[in-house]
């Protein structure tokens, strides 16, 4: 009876389901990344500090989203929903910030 794109699985989980051990490993990675982030407060990384923090943030984000939130193993539609919202937010607010930072008194 199932119609269009119903995949061939029974429940919502994919076939690859992380084990508790894998989850703990991810948590350890996240902890290490956090320690690296915090170290920027104590150590002077110079000009790479801010780009490094951005990269670390993104990596942590992807780990939590991909593994803990199971996006890596689930139907792609979930990823699309999340990343669409995220993309809209990033683009719209970046434009807003740029316009606000560069606004002048009216020339007309």
């Amino acid at each position, binding site marked *: 009876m199932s119609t269009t794109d119903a995949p061939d699985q029974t429940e919502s989980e994919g076939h690859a389901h992380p084990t508790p051990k894998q989850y703990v490993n991810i948590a350890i990675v996240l902890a290490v990344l956090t320690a690296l*982030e915090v170290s920027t407060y104590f150590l002077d990384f110079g000009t790479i500090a801010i780009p490094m923090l951005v990269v670390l*943030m993104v990596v942590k*984000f992807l780990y939590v989203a991909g593994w803990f939130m199971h996006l890596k193993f689930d139907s792609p539609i979930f990823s699309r929903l*999340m990343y669409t919202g995220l993309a809209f937010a990033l683009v719209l607010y970046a434009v807003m*910030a740029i316009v606000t930072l560069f606004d002048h008194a009216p020339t007309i």
Partner: protein
Amino acid sequence: MSTDVATTTLGIDHRKLGMWTFLGSEFLFFGAFVSAYLLYLDTTAGGPGVEIFDIPFTSISSFVLLMSSLTMVLAHHAHTKGDMRRMRMWILATAGQGAVFLGGQVFEFNVFFREGLELSTSPFASSFYVLTGFHGLHVFVGILLLSSLYVLSLTGKIKPNQDVKTEMIGLYWHFVDIIWVVIFTVVYLIPEIAVIG
């Protein structure tokens, strides 16, 4: 109405699809507050600015929240195995860590308040408090959801074969954690370097 995946068009549970749809919109919500905060980083009206932050303290509470995602996912895993006792244990751990995080936030806010950073001090102050305040509110709601999960699994409303419910609440909890991953970097760490050096 059956939400059984076998009868849905895309083969996924309505509730899970609904939660992801909602989470997509939440980025727009938090994004606006983050943008306002960044625009007002220097607008301190003579009052305290980012120098008031206690990075080591906030790092600890951030770490606690991050680890609560681990216990959350372990709770869901236990549920998928039908082990409700273990699931409840991990749920309690998650909610507990969330409460510790919130306690840290409340403490932090109190310290800032005493040091002269109030909601009405400056645009910087308002955007800081409201952004982290709304995040804290989301954590609080999450703790309510987790407590309900705990209690309702005891009363039998949450059954061993219904792990999608724990999964759904887990998604919300991880999302709140992800937002904090962003806030910790963008609100605390980067401004520390950019403004103070």
